[in-house]
């Protein structure tokens, strides 16, 4: 209910209150010859109660006031004056006013209590989220750290017993673990940038084809994958977007695709332009996502129920955050012939300068 009140602007709330009172007065006027005019007061009281449930405190108090005056003016004899003849009518009028006010104030108090409860619940959720973060972090950060400490211990203390191959492999493990740590820290930094709410896209002209080729090269270097093919529209214009964010978005999607599909899977990235809309599609022919979990995959820290160890559940939430920071949206669906398909749409300023002939 409190949410509804927020959605309706305060001026509109006053207008609705006046309309409700007018309507009730009109309906009551039809019946006033057949019923006691005191009964009409209850109709108006009902309006105040409804307003108290729907609207903020001030419009509700306003409703209490105008409904009392309306009752007096239209129904208390002599009708169509604010004058009150009988003493009991005056008492009834004052009582009406007091009851309407109490009604308004009590309902408001209940709402405040509700709000406090929601805040408490939110705090509870934050703590839950924090615990999830700590659990996944301690795993994701501790594993590479354990690998580094273990490998260096071996190299320092048992160097003479190690074969040349052992030594090479230990150094290789240190290198891999450091890379993994760096990647996780990068994800966490990006997440905290998103969380801080101060993230503003830094838009500049961007050659999307170049960006895609560079990002694919990065993913290939970091994963050793050779399965990514690129389909870029040769007539793609320049787009004015935040290049760093889009780079991270594409990197995360491709990295995920490489890590979560089999060795010889095919991953395809394509870029299209529809008027001022940039569309980027990342598809693979892997297993796809469990259909009942698709709606959760962009949630922070969400990890598929049967996913392997590794991953903080941050990658896709960063994708969503960075795309939405640029007023775009990202969707995921399973293809009918198997595999997942991520679709990114971002509206941006374009320039076809790049397809003019040389100056």
């Amino acid at each position, binding site marked *: 209910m409190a949410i509804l009140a927020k959605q309706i602007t305060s001026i509109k709330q006053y207008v609705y209150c006046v309309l409700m009172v007018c309507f009730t007065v009109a309906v009551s006027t039809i019946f006033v010859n057949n019923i006691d005019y005191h009964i009409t007061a209850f109709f108006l009281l009902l309006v105040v109660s409804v307003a108290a449930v729907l609207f903020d405190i001030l419009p509700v108090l306003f409703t209490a006031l105008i409904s009392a005056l309306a009752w007096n003016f239209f129904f208390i004899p002599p009708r169509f004056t604010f004058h009150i003849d009988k003493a009991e009518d005056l008492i009834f009028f004052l009582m009406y006013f007091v009851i309407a006010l109490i009604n308004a104030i009590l309902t408001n108090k209940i709402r405040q209590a509700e709000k406090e409860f929601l805040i408490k619940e939110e705090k509870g959720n934050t703590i839950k989220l924090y615990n999830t973060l700590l659990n996944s972090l301690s795993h994701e950060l501790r594993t590479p750290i354990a690998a580094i400490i273990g490998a260096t211990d071996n190299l320092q203390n048992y160097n003479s017993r190690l074969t040349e191959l052992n030594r090479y492999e230990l150094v290789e493990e240190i290198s891999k673990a*450091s890379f993994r740590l*760096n990647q996780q820290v*990068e994800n966490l*930094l990006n997440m905290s*940038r998103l969380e801080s709410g101060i993230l503003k896209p830094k838009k*500049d*002209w*961007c*050659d999307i*084809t*170049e960006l895609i*080729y*560079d990002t694919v*090269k990065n993913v290939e270097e970091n994963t050793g994958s050779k399965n990514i093919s*690129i389909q870029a529209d040769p007539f793609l214009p*320049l787009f004015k977007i935040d*290049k*760093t964010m889009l*780079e991270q978005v594409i990197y995360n999607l491709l990295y995920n695709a490489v890590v979560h599909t089999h060795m010889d899977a095919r991953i395809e990235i394509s870029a299209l332009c529809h008027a001022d809309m940039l569309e980027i599609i990342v598809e693979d022919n892997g297993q796809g996502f469990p259909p009942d979990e698709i709606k959760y995959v962009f949630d922070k820290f969400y990890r598929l129920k049967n996913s392997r160890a590794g991953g903080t559940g941050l990658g896709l939430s960063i994708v969503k955050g960075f795309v939405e920071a640029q007023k775009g949206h990202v969707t995921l669906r399973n293809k009918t012939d198997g595999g997942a398909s991520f679709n990114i749409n971002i509206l941006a300023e374009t*320039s076809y*300068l*790049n397809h*003019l002939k*040389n*100056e």
Partner: protein
Amino acid sequence: MNSAIILIIDDEVQMRKLLQITLESNGYRFLSAATAKEGLVAAATHPPDAILLDLGLPDESGHDVLIKLREWYSNPVIILSVQNSEEDIIKALDAGANDYLVKPFRTGELLARLRSVIKVKSNDESIPVINCGNFEIDFAARLVKKHNEIIKLTATEYALLSLLIKNEGRVLTHQYLLKEIWGPGYINQSQYLRVFIAQLRKKIEHDANRPVHIITESGVGYRFVIV
């Protein structure tokens, strides 16, 4: 054997240790300083051939150290920066840093940067022809040839390419390139630069989508590399 002296200004012991080992094992000599104050004193007492300057120093910002150094020190300065700080990097490059490295960086990268800044310093300006691998540029004749065939370049393309090649190995910021080639009024017209870089790549690179000469330094600028 080069015996250039490199001054390391970084507050992290581990970073200094790593840099020292890297430099020593590649024939450089080194001095090191843990604070801005120590660094400035060391630079003044034994002017080094190049300085590796960390931007995040405890006593004073690396940017301020750079400005103070540039009042009298003309040898190369390479900035060491942390991730996600393109603005910092551009600011430092504009203030006279010759190049930058983002932590964590690969040892190979560090050595390549050092080689190129020290080489640029001693570069003879009057070399008329530079062979860049799959093509060559003749500054005297203002010609670019690929497999002995002349590549047709517009005046702007030639100006951009020769500026990049003259600064081979060094990163040039978007703003610097726009100002030098198109003039100060074009500093925010980055779309021109994107377009001309793409055109140049089509003409000189073997595969314009996988460039090996004109390398994009994301968010900062471009770097020309001779392969």
